């Protein structure tokens, strides 16, 4: 069982890194998800997989061959956090598509390297415009 899971983790991580190295931002985001799932599976496997019983402690004490509950709790936390971050990454991807009209990672990251745009000369320095708009 461990061997199978190890190979799966290795494959997922390899696919994830391969996609992270792709030039398309969409594939980079999916790569992050695949990599994240590989990592989650690895964390899950760190509690060993041979257990036969759920880790419920009854009046009779812990059952023999009970699973280690801690990695299960950890991986649940990690899945939830990973999902939230994936949603945020997708939102950034959408914004980036709208702003740059491309998913090519190199062209998008080059924009931040361009010279800073100067602030508008007529920008009202003494007035809090955004607060007035109530945003």
């Amino acid at each position, binding site marked *: 069982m461990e061997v199978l899971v190890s190979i799966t983790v290795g494959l997922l991580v390899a696919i994830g890194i391969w996609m992270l190295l792709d030039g398309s931002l969409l594939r980079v985001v999916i790569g992050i998800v695949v990599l994240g799932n590989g990592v989650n599976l690895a964390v899950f496997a760190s509690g060993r997989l041979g257990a036969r019983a759920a880790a419920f402690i009854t009046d009779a004490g812990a059952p023999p061959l009970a699973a280690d509950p801690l990695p299960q709790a950890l991986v649940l936390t990690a899945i939830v956090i990973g999902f939230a971050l994936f949603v945020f990454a997708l939102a950034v991807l959408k914004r980036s598509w709208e702003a*740059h009209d491309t998913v090519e990672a190199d062209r998008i*990251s080059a924009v931040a390297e361009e010279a800073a*745009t100067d602030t*508008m000369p007529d920008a009202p320095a003494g*007035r809090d415009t*955004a607060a007035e708009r109530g945003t």
Partner: protein
Amino acid sequence: MNTLIVAPLLVPLATFVLTLLCRRAPRMAGALSLLGALALTGVGIGLVALADQGQIFATQAGGWAAPYGISLVIDRLSAAMVAITGIVGVATIVFSMARDADAARGADFHPLVHGLLVGVCGAFITGDVFNLYVWFEVLLVGSFALLVLGGGKRRVSGTVVYVALNLVATMMFLLAAGMLYGATGSLNMALLAEQFAQGQVPPTAQPAVVLMLTAFAIKAALFPVFGWLPASYHVAWTPVSALFAGLLTKVGVYALIRIVTLTAPEPGLVHDILLWVACATMLIGVLGATAQMEVRRILSFHIVSQVGYMVLGLALATPLALAGAVFYLIHHIVVKANLFLIGGIAAHLSGSERLAAMGGLYARAPWLALLFAIPALSLAGIPPLSGFWAKFLLVKASLDATAWIAAAVALATGIFTLLSMSKIWNEAFLKPQAAGTTTAQHGAGLRPAVLATASLGVLTVAIGLGAGPVMDYAVAAAEQLAAPASYIQAVIAAGGG
């Protein structure tokens, strides 16, 4: 006692919720936000006073004893970090009340700042590896949203780079935490430290530690994995980038210090590698800065360079070197955040942050020149400012450890830093502004910004002139770090209930 230990989490969390509820009342939200940051500073100072008694305080969340409950630990280092986090938070929030026309200004800023502060403080006080991962994620989510706040092509572009690389680093950390648990059966830092100190650790734990340190190295922007930092910090709104510059990489440095001192108490291979990495980071960072022609991009590369100094202290691992690292952390957070804020004021007054389009600020705003000179000279290590003492400790520690190359690199980096600062000085302050580039703006509504930067400047001078007490504190903090036994004992003794 226990209330005070969890207060660094509760105060920003409560402020986060309250400011979120006051979305429709911006003034109220601003006031609450400032109050929350002041309260956090107060808590931090209280913790410093408490920790300075020499004892390490620990509590277990949920009342479960050590390996089961999540330990929260306050020692001298974490107390000082919480205090300084509060101070930078206050400065950032006060600065954000100055009136510029940035699109990032709005109802989301204050809750996000406090969300970030929860994560930062959590990372500083936790005593559990997985919990550290969770706090990293909390601060990461806050920083993602803060970075992109206001939108626009440039910010989205910087955020794409920042999000992708930080997510990969966090996943490496998570994988390392899983592997460490698989190898040792524990994630509590104190119990791990005990196992490592007694040499009971199976060899499979070593790759996990290396992977974890690599993840922290990305977070701390060490050579050769610092590329994300100068690609993203300069795009954010000024208060946001100042907050990042002050705090975020330093959480990575703090995590490095914590994990290295607990898992590798005796100098070894890890320290040798860190020494070379530190030297390369100092030098490459400062050289990278010379090629930049925008204020915040120059300063971003200097963050990389300065992080090298702190890691140098960690790599040398003598009590004096560790004290230097702690002193450097305290000094650097204040100075770096301040420089970003002053860079923002200078850019606002000249209508540009490109050095080519700036100029004439010395004649127009001599007060700003003074405000800039204090942290800039401190960053370069000119006596009697705080940076001098920090560099002095580290260079002395390198010489004591016969690490001649490290000492030479540290000194050379100081000279290059001075060169970079004089470039900003010449271009933005002395040179007359070229006609017809951008219209210079008036300083109306800048009073909060000046207040924030002046306060941080006063703090820098105070740390420099009153270096004695700060240095005593740093030395005492280093002694705690160098002897993990008291840390282990405090956590295990904290027990349940």
